[in-house]
């Protein structure tokens, strides 16, 4: 490194201004929390783009998810953030847009390739402005060890009762831990627990909207019921699950020690690499046989433009490319489990990913219940509170009713529509 010890101040100041000088053969940088995907971007996606646009050099520079917010914040404040910024859905990105830290992309040709539903996660409430190009949604469900199921003579469960029976059977047999999940990191309890099985109880989009409108409360039975189910999960998790971290759970499952893994479709890539047994997936169980099925098909990730980018033109070229079929095809197949939100018809090679996406045909979709509007600004933050509440319920620290009451009280304390 040149600027090691001497003359660093002057050098770095000069470097800072020099970057913007040459617009033509531009270099652009992508900020992202998807550090797991680093090699895929480096080896597959970016080379494809750069082959078509030799003038533009793109670097994918991810930060670990736990630090993404703090680091991105600092970089945006400091004017050192990358040209392209990976967007979290709904309120988090809206906040950045309001601060002027995401550019308005309305009118960008690429956006025509996405449905309004897809764009809604990255648009203002009135839909007048869109600030990120949607990339992918993730679908929740359960991944399981097919070999283990075959060994124990088990079938994919369809309903809640069957699901519990399967868990009980695995537990009785004793060869496998029924379900690989830990509560140490808390967020899995919410994402792969509450948001995974919940939509069919609270009625998906209808239920979510009712909370936003203030016509339903989080303490209503349909919102408490998923917690009640999760309260029973503890006995089927590995010994000491309270201290089990997210990577522990992944390892537990891929080592073949656990039979079922409450999942999001983003796990597919890693599991394909690590597991040496056959993987299967089943939908979140229906409350009762014959109920309508609703899956959590969460618009999760998009790409926005840093308004201070000195290479906005080049960055827009890249954003436009993200709307093409080529990108959708590449991305979806390189990262099976991240399902493209574009209107282009995509063919997927991965059987497990196809299994997940096939559920869209039979089921209604919804997004995570607290992602939109309900996390906008107030304290306590509903999203974070749901992490703690979900983990508490599985740990048995709180009863389902207590957990729901806590969430409702917190929401009411600042969210006007809930205050009637």
């Amino acid at each position, binding site marked *: 490194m040149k600027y090691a*010890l001497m003359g660093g101040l002057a050098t770095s100041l000069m470097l800072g201004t020099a970057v913007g000088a040459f617009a033509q053969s531009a270099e652009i940088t992508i900020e992202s929390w998807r550090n797991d995907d680093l*090699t895929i971007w480096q080896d597959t996606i970016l080379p494809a783009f750069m082959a078509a646009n030799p003038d533009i050099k793109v670097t994918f520079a991810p930060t670990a*998810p736990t630090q993404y917010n703090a*680091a991105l914040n*600092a970089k945006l404040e400091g004017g050192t953030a990358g040209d392209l910024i990976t967007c979290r859905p709904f309120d988090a990105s809206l906040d950045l847009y309001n601060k002027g830290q995401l550019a308005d992309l309305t009118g960008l040709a690429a956006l025509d390739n996405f449905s309004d539903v897809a764009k809604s996660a990255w648009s203002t409430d009135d839909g007048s402005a869109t600030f990120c190009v949607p990339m992918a949604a993730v679908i929740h469900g359960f991944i399981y060890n097919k070999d283990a199921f075959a060994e124990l003579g088990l079938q994919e469960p369809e309903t809640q009762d069957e699901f519990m029976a399967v868990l009980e059977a695995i537990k009785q047999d004793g060869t496998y831990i029924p379900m690989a999940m830990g509560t140490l990191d808390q967020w899995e309890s919410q994402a792969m627990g509450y948001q995974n099985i919940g939509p069919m109880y609270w009625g998906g989009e209808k239920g979510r909207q009712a909370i936003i409108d203030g016509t339903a409360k989080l303490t209503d039975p349909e919102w408490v019921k998923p917690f009640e189910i999760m309260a029973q999960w503890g006995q089927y998790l590995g010994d000491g699950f309270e201290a089990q971290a997210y990577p522990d759970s992944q390892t537990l499952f891929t080592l073949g020690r656990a039979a079922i893994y409450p999942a999001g479709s983003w796990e597919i890539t890693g599991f394909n690499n690590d597991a040496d047994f056959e993987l299967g997936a089943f939908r979140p169980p229906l409350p009762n046989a014959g109920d309508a099925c609703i899956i959590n098909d969460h618009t999760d990730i998009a790409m926005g433009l840093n308004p201070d980018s000195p290479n906005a033109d080049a960055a827009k070229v890249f954003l436009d490319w993200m709307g093409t079929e080529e990108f959708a095809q590449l991305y979806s197949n390189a990262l099976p489990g991240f399902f493209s939100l574009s209107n282009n018809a995509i063919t997927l090679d991965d059987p497990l990913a196809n299994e997940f996406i096939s559920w869209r045909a039979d089921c209604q979709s919804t997004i995570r219940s607290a992602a939109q509007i309900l996390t906008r600004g107030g304290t306590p933050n509903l999203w974070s509170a749901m992490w703690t509440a979900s983990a508490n319920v599985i740990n048995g620290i709180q009863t389902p009713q207590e957990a729901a009451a806590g969430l409702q009280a917190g929401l009411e304390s600042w969210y006007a529509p809930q205050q009637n």
Partner: protein
Amino acid sequence: MAVSRARRNRVAELGAHVILLTFTVIALFPVILIVINSFKSKRAIFRDPVALPNAETFDLVGYTTVFTQGNFPLYFWNSLSVTVASLFFVLLFGAMAAFALSEYKFPFNRLTGLYLALGIMIPIRLGTIGILKLMVATGLVNTPWALILVYTAQGLPLSIFILSEFMAVVSKDLKAAGRIDGLSEYAIFFQLVLPLVRPALATVGVFTMIPIWNDLWFPLILAPSEATKTLTLGAQVFVGQFTNNWNAILAAMTLAIIPVIFLYVLFSRQLIRGLTAGAVK
């Protein structure tokens, strides 16, 4: 320190060995665990974590991943240059200020000393917001200088505090002799006083170095870019990036441990001497 035979007590000594050995094992076990497992295959790590690697379980896949994926030589260089530069400024500026405070009588001498010592009590982290804004305004964000400046400011109060105690006991006659021989005040400081307080500098050096080398907060806030990432931040990112690639993580950890131990050994000879010298005189 020779102890006469009459004062030795074999049984008590044995007891002391047992207790110290226990603490040593407790202190080292986790570290050793990391190192030995970094050389094993993934299955072996989980089958028998406390076993040493053998022909069957030996695997360097973690290290190959680290060297192809993370830019560890760069992170290491960043950590080293930031730490060394910060240490240099903390010791230089700290010793200079300590010399001024202990050597010269001037108005508000005591008040200045108190002002500079205030920072021992207040963690600089509480000023993160202001520091960030300052670094943004000066364009130092994402340069090593942001970190160096912060660590220098952070290390100064303690170093001034400790060093002025040491400076006060440096022979007055020696400084007088220097003045009579025509040395400037600067020459007296650099040529006479600084060499004499070397043990104190080592002490301050060690205590300043540890938090700088291991800091996660400021690299994250002030210099998170790939080019300025420090080893600690790099290792943390690595943990995030390879969430369950245990081989890679353990190898990264091992690589992060080695340099600190090396730096410590470099300083430790002076350390105890410095610690005791201050108290004795």
